[in-house]
């Protein structure tokens, strides 16, 4: 027998009460766990995906939409821009590097993005098998795309029009897989990458077999005299002055819009922040109710237990031991609640991720444990300690003789 076991025995003597308190606390803490997990991974992922991209240029519209569609590939593009305008930008002395993107097609919900090999370099992407695309209609698959769709190098497939899964297929031009990227845990995992030319040709009427045999552009813009469009451009600044001048310069030009990923993302988090704060508030309210529940349960049980406490004193327990006995009950309760809460939180996230295979959350992992979760446990234990202080103090002050003589 020891203090821990004694408190435990008293807890399991009331399984319903104990279970309910643990569950309530676990519920509040699981919400916090999910929030922490999502927030941390989301921010990490968002920052990682936008690394190296100073500015995104696209058609006029919502700057946030432009960023979401061109950097994170989760929203629809704002439209296309004329390649002449894009090429003019390439000559600007403030631009260090420019990567064109062409979008519009998908295969089974995975976006087909036309770009050049600079895009791969931007994310420092390597290949698991195969190599980069060199000819039109050759594609490299993101790690997850290859895994989920079970495609290998040499396989071919037909893309469909549109960004989401749907509509009519471009059946005349099958894509051929030339490479599969290694896992990067970023946006590349979910993309099908090809050349800008592939995207153009798949939408062209008629076949021009000479074009199909020519090598595609590896860096910069495709060399063509035709009137062509791209969807958006990823830019790197040459120097800090560019950050001041370039966006203003581009936005003042009628057809184009420039948006900074870091600015838009912090704006997005600001917008989401209201919702997150609301949920956080709810979680804190639940935790406070759970703490009150524990307090009330301990306080009520104390009424029935004054006799037991007095008996313990006659058996040699000191006042301090009784104090510890009650505090331990609160702390054991909340410790179990915290552990259960974290387990529920991770389980909930796992289910969430499983159900959203292609959405924005799909890149999250439930198997990540953060340092903040230790803080959750510490926080819960503090709640238990505080909730049991008054009952424990009452126990500390139990007048043995009075308790035992009044029957």
């Amino acid at each position, binding site marked *: 027998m020891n203090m821990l076991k004694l408190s435990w025995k008293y807890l399991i003597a009331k399984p319903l009460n104990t279970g309910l308190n643990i569950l309530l606390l676990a519920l509040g803490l699981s919400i916090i766990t999910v929030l922490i997990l999502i927030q941390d991974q989301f921010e990490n992922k968002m920052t990682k995906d936008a690394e190296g991209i100073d500015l995104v240029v696209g058609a006029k519209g919502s700057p946030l939409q432009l960023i979401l569609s061109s950097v994170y590939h989760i929203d629809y593009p704002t439209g296309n821009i004329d390649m002449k305008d894009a090429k003019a930008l390439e000559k600007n002395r403030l631009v260090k590097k420019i990567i064109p993107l062409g979008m519009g097609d998908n295969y089974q919900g995975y976006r087909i993005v036309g770009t050049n090999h600079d895009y791969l370099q931007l994310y420092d992407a390597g290949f698991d098998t195969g190599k980069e695309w060199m000819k039109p209609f050759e594609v490299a698959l993101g790690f997850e795309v290859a895994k989920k769709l079970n495609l290998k190098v040499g396989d071919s497939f037909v893309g469909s029009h549109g960004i989401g899964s749907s509509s009519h297929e471009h059946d005349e031009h099958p894509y051929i897989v030339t490479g599969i990227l290694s896992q990067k845990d970023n946006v590349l995992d979910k993309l099908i990458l090809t050349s800008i030319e592939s995207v153009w040709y798949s939408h062209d009427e008629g076949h021009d077999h000479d074009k199909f045999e020519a090598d595609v552009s590896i860096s910069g813009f495709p060399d063509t005299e035709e009137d062509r469009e791209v969807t958006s451009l990823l830019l790197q600044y040459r120097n800090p002055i560019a950050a001041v001048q370039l966006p203003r310069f581009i936005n003042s030009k009628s057809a184009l819009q420039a948006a900074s990923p870091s600015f838009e993302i912090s704006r997005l988090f600001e917008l989401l922040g209201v919702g997150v704060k609301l949920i956080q508030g709810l979680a804190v309210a639940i935790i406070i109710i759970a703490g009150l529940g524990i307090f009330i349960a301990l306080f009520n049980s104390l009424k029935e237990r004054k006799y037991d406490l007095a008996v313990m004193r006659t058996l040699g327990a000191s006042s301090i*031991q009784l104090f510890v006995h009650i505090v331990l009950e609160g702390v054991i309760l909340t410790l179990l609640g915290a552990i259960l809460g974290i387990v529920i939180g991770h389980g909930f996230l796992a289910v969430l991720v499983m159900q959203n295979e292609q959405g924005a959350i799909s890149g999250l992992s439930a198997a990540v444990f953060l340092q903040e979760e230790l803080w959750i446990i510490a926080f819960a234990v503090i709640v238990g300690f505080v909730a049991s202080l008054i009952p424990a103090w009452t126990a500390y002050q139990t007048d043995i003789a009075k308790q035992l003589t009044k029957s």
Partner: protein
Amino acid sequence: MLSVKNIQFQYNPDLKFQVPDISMSAGDELLILGKSGSGKTTILNILGGLLKPQSGEILLNNTKLNLLKGAELDKFRGKNIGIVFQKPHILAPLTVEENLKLANFFVGEKGDQNLNLLKELGIFDKRKAKVNTLSEGEAQRVSIARALANHPKLILADEPTASLDDENAQAVIRLLQEQAKKHNAALIIVTHDQRVKDHISNHLIMGGLS
């Protein structure tokens, strides 16, 4: 071994108890009789160190009980004084054996004799049982076993037979006497139960208020 001298206690200025001097050696028995309100439970509480007397001296096994305080007093009580109450007061979340072990734990004893004790009191088979499955008589025997778990020098029993039938009452008194002898402890029983009178020859009758 036990010597009580000049003990005075008062709940308030109008209600004053004068406790008769008591002197007992190991193995002695004493029955304190009196009507309710005569202060006999108060004596028991003072002897058990549950109440502090205003004046006087209690010497148990060469320790001045009335001078001990706080945790020191609690440990001394747990180790040297076994108290049996009118109601058994078994801690319900614990099994019979765990109730004994808890008594051992609080004073740092090993409790090697617990199972023997339970055997002698005829409740060995119930050692894993919870209190709510015990009969009144069994529960009272458990409370006796628990009072004896740390081999006390003094056994105090407060109306131990009040809620028992004749047969059980007799058994409980006999067990208390046997165990007190065996542990070489002084036994003090406080009661108004006339059935107990014949079993113990040494009586102290409380007159009531002084």
